[in-house]
């Protein structure tokens, strides 16, 4: 991984929110959804805000410091799942004080959990997404 790389959400099928510090991500194309550990939520939020990974390495994270190896592995999972891509023309931003504080207070290792048991529901997306111009009902291919 190039630590100066800036990342961005891979495409418009990746939708996400954070509730009470818990990030949740849904891939409308695959139907998979994702949850994170507390530190994972912070890093996800930082990365999609275009904070360069280099500026995260060595930051206080729970009882220790965020290591390059752990961050590298975490970003590899995010890209492997198709959630993030390098953003070639993005402008980097600094880590917000709030995220830095949350990261320092985290108690769990960097982790992302993938779930696919609702894929059928999300793929047919009957209630939560109607593509009006394409007609209805529509199943995503």
């Amino acid at each position, binding site marked *: 991984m190039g630590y100066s790389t800036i990342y961005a959400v891979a495409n418009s099928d990746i*939708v*996400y*929110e954070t*509730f009470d510090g*818990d990030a*949740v991500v*849904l891939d409308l194309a695959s139907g998979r*959804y994702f*949850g994170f550990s507390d530190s994972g939520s912070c890093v996800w939020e930082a990365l999609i805000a275009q904070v360069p990974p280099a500026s995260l390495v060595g930051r206080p994270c729970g009882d220790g410091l965020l290591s390059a190896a752990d961050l590298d592995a975490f970003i590899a999972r995010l890209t492997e799942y198709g959630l993030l891509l390098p953003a070639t023309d993005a402008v980097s931003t600094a880590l917000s004080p709030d995220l830095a504080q949350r990261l320092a207070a985290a108690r769990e290792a960097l982790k992302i*959990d993938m*779930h696919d*048991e*609702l894929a*059928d*529901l999300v*793929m*047919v997306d*009957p*209630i*939560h*997404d*109607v593509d009006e111009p394409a*007609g*209805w*009902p529509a*199943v995503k291919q």
Partner: protein
Amino acid sequence: MKLGIVLPVYNRETYVGSALRSVLRQREAAEFDIIVIDDGSVDGTAEVVRSFIADGAPIRLFSQANTGVTRARNAGLRRLLDDTEFVSFIDSDDISPVGRFAADLAHFRSDPGLELTYSYMRMVDQIDDETLEPVAGCDDRIFRGVHLSAGIYRRGLIKRIGDFDEELAQSEDTDFLFRIFEQRARFVFPDTIALYYRRHEHNLTRNLAESRREFLKAMQKSMRRRKADPTLGDLRGFIQVAHPTGDGAPLRP
């Protein structure tokens, strides 16, 4: 057996009569107690409901200031009668197909430990409000998805799961069903089509941004619960998508 059916409604004078007729035509299936929560309608909804009551239908109408669908559903649950054994729901714009209640209640008769039947829904864009059937040739899709009306719930299960989560303005149904399957309720998935889900321009769920946010919130809550308690069940097998048949017959999973 007594079946309480909760119907929250807000400004649906056009559709609520069809929804009620679709249930009332099945009165041989059980002793019905239809609980209508009029959530502050300003159209003729209440008058439509009262006309059914005047004709002797087993409907109790409760009117309240507008609080949103989640609180309206909870208001309905609080009005269940002491001797109600089973609970179901119907939304004010949906249709309960002929024979739906008889078919699924039979599962409870043959299995005293059963807590839930959860059947298919048929999503359609045109319903004939005279016959209460989908219009021939309309767009449709049959699947087991997220819809409270797909279920019949033993009263004890409702008590065990608790109220709808009033932090959720939408996807309160998703969250409720997630909690049921996390709690490993004893269920069957019958082949019945439990409802015709009517798509129309006023569907609550057409506000896409809010719908997605609330759906993600329900997912987050489920993941948080399962993380805190790994003994909870996951949601595998809950959703089953079938394909359009053209004749309304359900496909087997």
